[in-house]
């Protein structure tokens, strides 16, 4: 946790989000709390389906309205609870103060609207009347490395990487203070991934943007993030600075995650995948959600909510066998 006495720029408290699917309630996000300051980057890591995207969409309040809702918690941005804002106030924030980069560039752009207009639209929504939105959109195209004359083209004339640049241009057109990037490079060719990531980071540095980076690529986390939150089944199981998480992972799940990454320095025969599957979000296990897959699990893990343990330097871990495991690791 940041130590400054000022309020953090973004502070999510006990966020709970559910949606209904086939009559069952999917517990997507279960009491997530996190903080993020301007100019900093927080990585949200975890498996597919762990609720990372839902957290981002909850912050922006753009969950698909069929059956999904934010059940509890707060999203404080500069001290204002976004969840209490009326829709028209929230609309002024979306795309302006907070914006989001989506996972799949192939489907994130409107196929029947010119790419330039898609950028100009967000500018127009959030700038003073009389602003030359087209000019601004062209500038943004140049910023993300696309010639301005392609303003008038349609998404189908762009490659995947170019589309993602347009998505980024849309997200950054209004100089957001908070950027939510949902696996911005997953759908791209490996060769373009680094370029796109560099672009995001450069722009972040330039505008002092707070960046919430959702990814399951630990390599990206290592190069880009300041802090890391490890998500499992809609819970944050471990939170700390990048160094803390990488050098001293404490939660069995985090340790397992690193076990699943090949280590270049050692000559390993086998990777160590985590046994079992993530739990069914409609029927989460009681107690620690990870206990069915955890080799350290005891009876204590199967009951009640697990209290987070935070060390003096802000390294949080939600595990009731923390002491035993860290002793074992040493």
């Amino acid at each position, binding site marked *: 946790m940041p130590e400054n006495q000022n309020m953090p720029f973004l502070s999510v408290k006990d966020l709970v989000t559910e949606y209904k699917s086939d009559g069952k309630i999917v517990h997507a996000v279960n009491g997530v709390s996190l903080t993020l300051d301007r100019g900093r980057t927080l990585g949200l890591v975890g498996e597919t389906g762990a609720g990372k995207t839902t957290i981002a*969409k909850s912050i*922006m309040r*753009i969950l*698909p309205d*069929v059956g999904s809702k934010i059940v509890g918690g707060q999203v404080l941005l500069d001290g204002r609870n976004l969840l209490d804002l009326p*829709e*028209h106030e929230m*609309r*002024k*924030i*979306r*795309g*302006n103060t907070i*914006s*989001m980069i*989506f996972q*799949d560039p192939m*489907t*994130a*752009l*409107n*196929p*029947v*609207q010119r790419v330039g207009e*898609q950028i100009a*639209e*967000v500018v127009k*929504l*959030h700038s003073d009347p009389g602003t030359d939105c087209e000019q601004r959109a062209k500038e943004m195209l140049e910023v993300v490395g696309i010639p301005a004359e392609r303003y008038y083209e*349609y998404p*189908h*004339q762009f490659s995947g990487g170019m589309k993602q640049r347009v*998505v980024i241009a*849309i997200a950054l057109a209004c100089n957001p203070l908070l950027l939510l990037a949902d696996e911005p490079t997953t759908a791209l060719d490996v060769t373009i991934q680094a370029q796109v990531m560099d672009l995001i980071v450069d722009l972040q540095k330039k505008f002092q943007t707070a960046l919430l980076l959702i990814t399951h690529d630990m390599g990206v986390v290592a190069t880009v993030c300041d802090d890391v939150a490890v998500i499992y089944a809609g819970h944050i199981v471990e939170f700390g600075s990048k160094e803390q998480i990488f050098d001293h992972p404490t939660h069995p799940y985090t340790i397992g995650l690193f076990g699943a990454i090949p280590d270049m320095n050692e000559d390993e025969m086998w990777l160590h995948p985590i046994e079992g599957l993530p739990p069914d979000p409609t029927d989460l296990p009681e107690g620690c959600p990870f206990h069915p897959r955890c080799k350290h699990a005891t009876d204590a893990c199967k009951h009640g909510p697990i209290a987070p343990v935070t060390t003096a330097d802000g390294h949080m871990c939600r595990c009731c066998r923390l002491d035993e495991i860290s002793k074992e690791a040493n």
Partner: protein
Amino acid sequence: MGRYILKRLLWMIPIILGVTILVFAMMTVCPGDPAEIILGSTATQADLAAKRTQLGLDQPFLVRLGKYMSDVFLRFDLGKSWITGVSISASIPERMSRTMILAIVTLVIAFGLGIPLGITAATHQNKWQDSVSMVLALIGVAIPNFWLALLLIILFSVKLGWLPAMGIEAGLASYILPALSNSAGALANAARQTRSSMLDVIRADYITTARAKGVPEREVITKHALKNAMIPIITQMGTTFGRLLGGAMVIETIFSLPGMGLYVINAVNNRDYPVVQGGAIVLAIAFSLAMLLIDLLYAAVDPRIKAQYASAKKGNAKKVKANA
């Protein structure tokens, strides 16, 4: 784009020639002696024989067909009605315009109300608005238009006396009941189509992108979702329009509205075959033009389809080069 339109127009030529041959052939095998139809049953054998020669009926089928086609396509003359002797080409414009007014008014009512109804249903999926709209749509599809016409006449003409039940003397008011009876089914289909294609689109990622930009919900639906959902709706418009051109016959008969439908129906009942042939050809041309218009609408709505049309042109150009 211009070349695409030209290509499509050229394609219409063989189709229309085909329609002409088909209809001409069907009329030829229709029962009844044309000479007797024209002169009536009291005519003498000599008169009948003379009439047959005059009509060229003693000549072989192919010769008659050839003559008819050269009249129609080279001199734009559809011949004269056997019954009234009036030139068919001269009668058609006025009647066609009435059928078109009826079709357009119907289309405007059906899609003007059907699309918003479908959008409401889609944006309130599984809520009461959805159920009510879809029950209405199911009923609308089920009610035969000619029966609805009778019911509307009972209500608005007989009981209330608000609107005329027949003729066109009352100007546009005369078209209200015919258009209403015609539009119920079309409206229902439009609403169902709109709902289902909006549901397909509404969960697309680019809709989330639009919301994330801070676009007001109303605009998300009308500007982003609807335009993407339009293609199947436009297809529906095309089929509806085609059905209206042909199906107008029943409605025009009920309301004695002297459009193309009534013209052709009366001709069929009086065995006035040149009128049936002429009517069929003109309706087929109108129908093909409408379909072309629909294809152009696709291109106007979706740049990908426009690009396809353009690249089809390029592809052909390549083929031509390769052949040369």
